[in-house]
C-alpha cells in the first residue's frame, strides 16, 4: 500500500518533470526555427544574382555586396593564416615542452578569461594597437581578430593534444626518436581534430563579429583584390549588415545579408559536429 502510493507520487513527479523538459526543449527549438524562418523569409526574396556580384553604385542607386563578401573571405584567410601557427605553436609548447606547471596553469587561465571578454573591448585595443599605426584597414581588423581567436585555437588544440595517449609518446621515444620527431609524427596527427574544430569555431566567430571590426577595419564597400583589400578599409558582411540597416535604412539588403550569414552559421555548426563525430568514431575504433 505504502509502496504503491509512493510509486504513484513518483510517477506523477516524473511525468511533470518530463513535461516541463519537453516544453523547454520545444520552445528553444521553436525559437531557433522561428528566427531562422523569419530571417530567411524576409531575406531570400531580396537576394539576387546582381546583389551578390556587384559593388554598390551611387550612379545607378543599386546596392551590391560583392565587396563585403570578398572582404569577409580576405579577413577570414588573413586571420587564420596568422592565428593558426601562433595558437597551435603555443598549445604544443604548453603541453609538450613547458615544465613549469604553475606558469602553464596561469596561461591557461588567462586564455580562458580572454575568451570571455566582450568583443568591443578587443576593438578598442585593436584600434589603439593596430589602426592607429597602420590605418583603418582589413589587416588591422584581422590582427584584432587574431587576438580574439588565439585563445580558442590554443585551447581546442591543447584539449586534443591531451587526449593523445602518453603511451604513443613513450613508444616513439623508446625507439630513439627525438622530441620534435615524436611531436610531428605521433602527437600532431592526433590533434588534427582539435585544430579543425578550433578553425571552424573561429570562422564562425569572425563571421559574427561586428563591434571589434567597426573600430579597426572600417566600413567601406570598395571592390579590391586580396593584397589591396587587406590594406584598405572595408566592411565584412556583418559590418555591412549593420551599416545598411542602421545608417541607410536598407532593410531589404540587411535581411538578405542576414539570411546568408544564417545559412553559413548553420553550415558551420553542422561541419563542426561532423568533424567531431568523425574523429570520435576514429578514436573509439
Amino acid at each position, binding site marked *: 500500500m505504502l509502496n504503491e502510493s509512493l510509486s504513484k507520487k513518483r510517477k506523477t513527479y516524473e511525468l511533470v518533470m518530463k513535461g516541463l523538459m519537453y516544453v523547454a526543449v520545444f520552445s528553444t527549438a521553436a525559437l531557433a526555427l522561428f528566427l531562422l524562418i523569419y530571417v530567411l523569409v524576409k531575406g531570400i526574396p531580396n537576394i539576387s544574382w546582381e546583389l551578390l556580384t556587384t559593388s554598390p553604385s551611387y550612379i545607378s542607386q543599386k546596392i551590391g555586396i560583392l565587396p563585403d563578401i570578398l572582404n569577409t573571405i580576405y579577413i577570414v584567410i588573413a586571420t587564420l593564416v596568422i592565428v593558426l601557427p601562433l595558437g597551435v605553436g603555443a598549445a604544443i609548447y604548453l603541453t609538450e615542452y613547458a*615544465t613549469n606547471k604553475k606558469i602553464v596553469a596561469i596561461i591557461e587561465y588567462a586564455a580562458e578569461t580572454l575568451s570571455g571578454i566582450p568583443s568591443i573591448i578587443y576593438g578598442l585595443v585593436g584600434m589603439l594597437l593596430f589602426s592607429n599605426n597602420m590605418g583603418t584597414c582589413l589587416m588591422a581588423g584581422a590582427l584584432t581578430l587574431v587576438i580574439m581567436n588565439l585563445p580558442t585555437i590554443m585551447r581546442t588544440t591543447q584539449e586534443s593534444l591531451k587526449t593523445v*595517449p602518453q*603511451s*604513443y*609518446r*613513450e*613508444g*616513439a*621515444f*623508446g*625507439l*630513439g*626518436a*627525438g622530441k620534435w*620527431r615524436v611531436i610531428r*609524427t*605521433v602527437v600532431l*596527427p*592526433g590533434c588534427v581534430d582539435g585544430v579543425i574544430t578550433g578553425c571552424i569555431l573561429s570562422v564562425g566567430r569572425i563571421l559574427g563579429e561586428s563591434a571589434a571590426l567597426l573600430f579597426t577595419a572600417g566600413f567601406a564597400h570598395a571592390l579590391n583584390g586580396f593584397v589591396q583589400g587587406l590594406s584598405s578599409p572595408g566592411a565584412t558582411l556583418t559590418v555591412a549588415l549593420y551599416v545598411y540597416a542602421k545608417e541607410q535604412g536598407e532593410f531589404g539588403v540587411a535581411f538578405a545579408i542576414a539570411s546568408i550569414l544564417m545559412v553559413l552559421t548553420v553550415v558551420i555548426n553542422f561541419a563542426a559536429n561532423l568533424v567531431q563525430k568523425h574523429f570520435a568514431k576514429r578514436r573509439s*575504433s
Partner: protein
Amino acid sequence: MNNIVTVKDMNLWYGDHQALHDIKIEIPEKSITAFIGPSGCGKSTFLKSLNRMNDLIPDVKITGDICYEGKDIYQKDVDVNSLRKEIGMVFQKPNPFPMSIYDNVAYGPRTHGITNKAQLDEIVEQALRDAALWDEVKDRLKKNALSMSGGQQQRLCIARALAVQPKILLMDEPTSALDPISTSRIEELVMQLKEKYTIVMVTHNMQQAVRVSDYTAFFLLGELVEFGKTDDIFSVPKDKRTEDYITGRFG
C-alpha cells in the same frame, strides 16, 4: 660470457621518495634476465633507467654508475636517442601507433635515417618474421595496426622494437595483458630472440620466469635482494626473503 650492462651503487629518487637503493647487477649478454618482486618494489623503475626512459619524468634523480658496454649512459655526452636505438623497449600495454602495420615497424628505421623503400621493405619483413607475425599480417601490411588483436599488437610492438636492430630488449611485463595462447607465443619468441639479443624482462609470473629466463633478479622495497642463475634462485635461494617470496609466503 660478457656482461653487457653493469650497474654499481645506483640510487634513484622520485622527488623525495627513494625508489631504488644501492643497486648492483651485471647483466650477461645474449641471455634472458628476469626481474621479479612484489608490486611497487621498483622493477619498472630500474628497467626504465637502463635506457633512460626515466628522463621523461620530471624530478627524477639518479646517482651511481649504469654502464652499457663499458660506458656510463648518464654521462653528459651520451646521445639519448642513439642509446635508445641500442637498448629498445617493449611496454606492458601494447602501444602500436595509430598507423598502418608497415608504418609502425618502419617507424624506427625511418627515425634513424633509412628512406630507401627496398631496404625498408626488407627490414620490416625481417622484423615481422623475427616477431613471428609475418605470416599473419603479410597480406594486410597497409591495415591500421589498431585493428589487430592484443597479442598481435604486442608482437607488432616487439617487431617495431627489433626493426631498429637493438642490442638489448627491455620488456616490462610484456604478457600481462594477454591471453594464455598469446602469452606462450611470446615466451617462445623471447627464447628464440636471445640468440641475437640480450633480453631483460619484468614479470609477475613466477612460472614464466622459470620457463623463460637464464638469470633472475629478485627486488624488494627498492633493493636488489638476490641475483643469480634462475635455476639456483628457484631451487637454492641464498636469502630468506627470496625463499619466502618464491614459495608464495608473501607478496
